[in-house]
């Protein structure tokens, strides 16, 4: 009898264990792509594969004697290895026959690049990810002013130190509302909202139709970046609000750009326009839900468009419009650079420079990635960007980041995404701002010493 009882208990536990094993099998194919927390974010963020590669017209080989030898490009696009990069290598080596071009793809780029630089030797062409202050650039990188580009470039000043340019943007993006057109039609939203009130009204209609109006991906933190960097830019029509924080002891107040921006998100949260449970969101799943029209909108960069299309949406079904951050009816949008190309000053500089020029002008990478090209007069290929431009947004160009605000922020250990989360979830948002302002002021005075 006793044995029978223990057997029963053991089998009951076994069954639950077994069923959990079963769900493991289901889980694995669903989480395609990312496998570890952070790498997942950084990877997918700039992981905009999808559009087919458009070959730039092959020019006749211009053999330059100085341009030869081995060039290694350290890239974050692990997905392009053995695919597009094979083609890049062939085309580039055709143009410069003396060059041996190699690609090295790594994940968790920022962390690893930092370690490689600290170790003293790193590849010839790298992406200047965040984390390297501008003042440090001349120590490791070669100035790129002498590359003769065929057109004006965006962001010549962003990586400029003492009048010399150390980085060239690989492409640019903007931030706005990416939406599912069918979901809008189903909810009876016939026109894209031009003001904030219209935006709330549209969200209400979506909610009434059983569609989650805006996918915030609140839990994952990084998707909240738009509310910190981009919405304040739209509200103030200036891009230096992050820099200006260094001038004050209270950078986050209810009535400044941050308070206004965070309050919009808080309103959306309170009215139930975000996911059912914002603390249990799933980024990979949200792309499918947007594609299928279960979710209505994203507030993210244009890079997400291709990812939504990859997850099953028809391209003509995905739209993109500027986020109405206020009731003025004026369309505004930030213009943000992606990673910058940098050239190792101790590497094969001449050939590396030729490769950077080729990447910008001929590789077609900007179109492949769905970027706004760095060459000012080149039109973006992405259909959604064309739609975006029909609303005539005023683009606000990013400005070079100052190092002092970043230093204060690091000293104070402020993670702005966490600040947004607390602001939205807290009963008393003013208290949250006070807490962060206090940390900020303390770190600021500690650094001033």
């Amino acid at each position: 009898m006793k044995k029978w009882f223990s057997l029963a208990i053991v089998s009951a536990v076994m069954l639950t264990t077994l069923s959990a094993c079963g769900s493991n099998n289901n889980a694995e194919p669903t989480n395609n792509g990312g496998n570890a927390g952070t790498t997942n974010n950084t990877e997918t963020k700039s992981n905009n594969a999808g559009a087919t590669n458009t070959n730039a017209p092959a020019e006749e080989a211009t053999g330059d004697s100085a341009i030869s030898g081995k060039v290694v490009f350290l890239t974050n696009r692990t997905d392009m290895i053995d695919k597009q990069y094979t083609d890049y290598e062939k085309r580039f080596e055709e143009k410069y026959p003396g060059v041996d071009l190699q690609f090295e793809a790594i994940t968790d780029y920022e962390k690893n690049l930092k370690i490689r630089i600290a170790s003293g030797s790193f590849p010839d062409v790298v992406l200047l990810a965040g984390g390297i202050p501008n003042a440090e650039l001349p120590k490791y990188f070669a100035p790129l002013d002498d590359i003769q580009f065929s057109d004006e470039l965006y962001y010549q000043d962003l990586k400029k130190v003492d009048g010399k340019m150390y980085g060239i943007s690989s492409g640019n993006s903007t931030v706005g509302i990416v939406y599912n057109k069918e979901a809008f039609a189903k909810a009876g939203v016939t026109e894209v909202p031009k003001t904030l009130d219209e935006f709330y009204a549209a969200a209400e209609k979506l909610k009434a139709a059983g569609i989650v109006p805006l996918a915030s991906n609140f839990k994952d933190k990084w998707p909240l970046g738009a509310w910190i960097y981009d919405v304040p830019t739209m509200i103030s029509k200036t891009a230096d609000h992050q820099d200006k924080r260094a001038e004050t002891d209270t950078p986050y107040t209810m009535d400044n750009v941050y308070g206004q921006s965070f309050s919009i998100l808080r309103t959306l949260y309170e009215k139930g326009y975000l996911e059912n449970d914002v603390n249990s969101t799933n980024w990979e799943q949200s792309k499918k839900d947007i594609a299928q029209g279960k979710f209505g909108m994203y507030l993210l960069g244009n890079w997400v468009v291709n990812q939504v299309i990859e997850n099953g949406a028809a391209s003509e079904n995905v739209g993109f419009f500027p986020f109405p951050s206020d009731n003025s009816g004026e369309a505004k949008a930030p213009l943000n650079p992606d990673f910058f190309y940098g050239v190792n000053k101790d590497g094969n500089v001449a050939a590396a420079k030729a490769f950077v020029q080729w990447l910008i002008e001929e590789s077609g990478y900007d179109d492949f990635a769905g970027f706004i090209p760095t060459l000012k007069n080149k039109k973006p290929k992405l259909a959604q960007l064309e739609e975006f431009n029909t609303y005539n947004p005023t683009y606000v160009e990013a400005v070079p980041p100052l190092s002092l605000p970043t230093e204060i922020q690091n000293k104070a250990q402020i993670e702005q995404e966490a600040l947004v989360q607390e602001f939205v979830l807290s009963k008393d948002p003013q208290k949250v701002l006070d807490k962060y302002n206090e940390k900020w002021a303390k770190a600021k005075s500690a650094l001033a010493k």
Partner: protein
Amino acid sequence: MFNRLPFHTQRKIIIVGFVAIPLLLLLTFAYYPALELIRLSFTDWDGMSPDKSWIGWDNYKEVFSNPEIFGVFKHNFAYFVVGIIQNILAIYFAIILNSKLRGKNFFRLLLFLPYILNGVAVAYLFGYVFDTTNGSLNTFLGTLGFDSLSQTSWLGSEGFVNYTLASIGLWRFMGFNMVIYLAALQSIPSDLYEAASIDGANGWQQFVYITLPNIYKIIELNLFLTVTGALEVFDLPFVLTNGGPAGASETFVMKIISTAFQFNNYGLASAMSVVLLLFVVVVLSIQRFLLNRGGN
């Protein structure tokens, strides 16, 4: 040539050779980095620049004076509580599976299996279990008729998110503890139990007076593993909640990682690591003291 040397010299060479190589490996890959960590903890290194300036005890002062840093230890408490439950369950299953039960090897295997799974895979798996809207747990509760319970945000409630996460740890490590207990149980001679049952001891008395004293050392070992595990939790909250909601499930190791790699303060992060190491030593000394007091 080696053969012609006197026996004593040969012996010395072999002993030195066999000791030197492992020692060298140990020194280069364990002790040198550890010393380097301690050295870094006294500097303000930003992770990249070649100059590391010495700032004395400032980092340590910061660790102990900043409640934001030290306060996250209270999140680890949940893992500790669940770790105790995990050990009790492990002993229970070990005793059951040590008896003459049909198919016990199969059950042992099943209980041990979760331990073999990779931590990140486990985290993803439970991400689908605990999801509020589509999760299997809430769907299950819904079909059982617990409508209000099936809306629970398992990973989004500040009150019990740590217990949710710790319960995943229980599922994962219980089998491992059980296997260790099983090995200990099998080393207890069965004539002790026979003698006890002839004297009329019931099952509970046998457990308290024979089993427990015999596996005492092993319980101590398992508690050691549980306590260090509870202090160093990282992968589950990192993948599942990213420290959320609003930092409620952030653990000390996550804090170390963000200090080093996000805020570029490698010096402070090194000091935090050293403090964690000392903390583990202190907690274990207390535990040993308490457990051994009864034994001696």
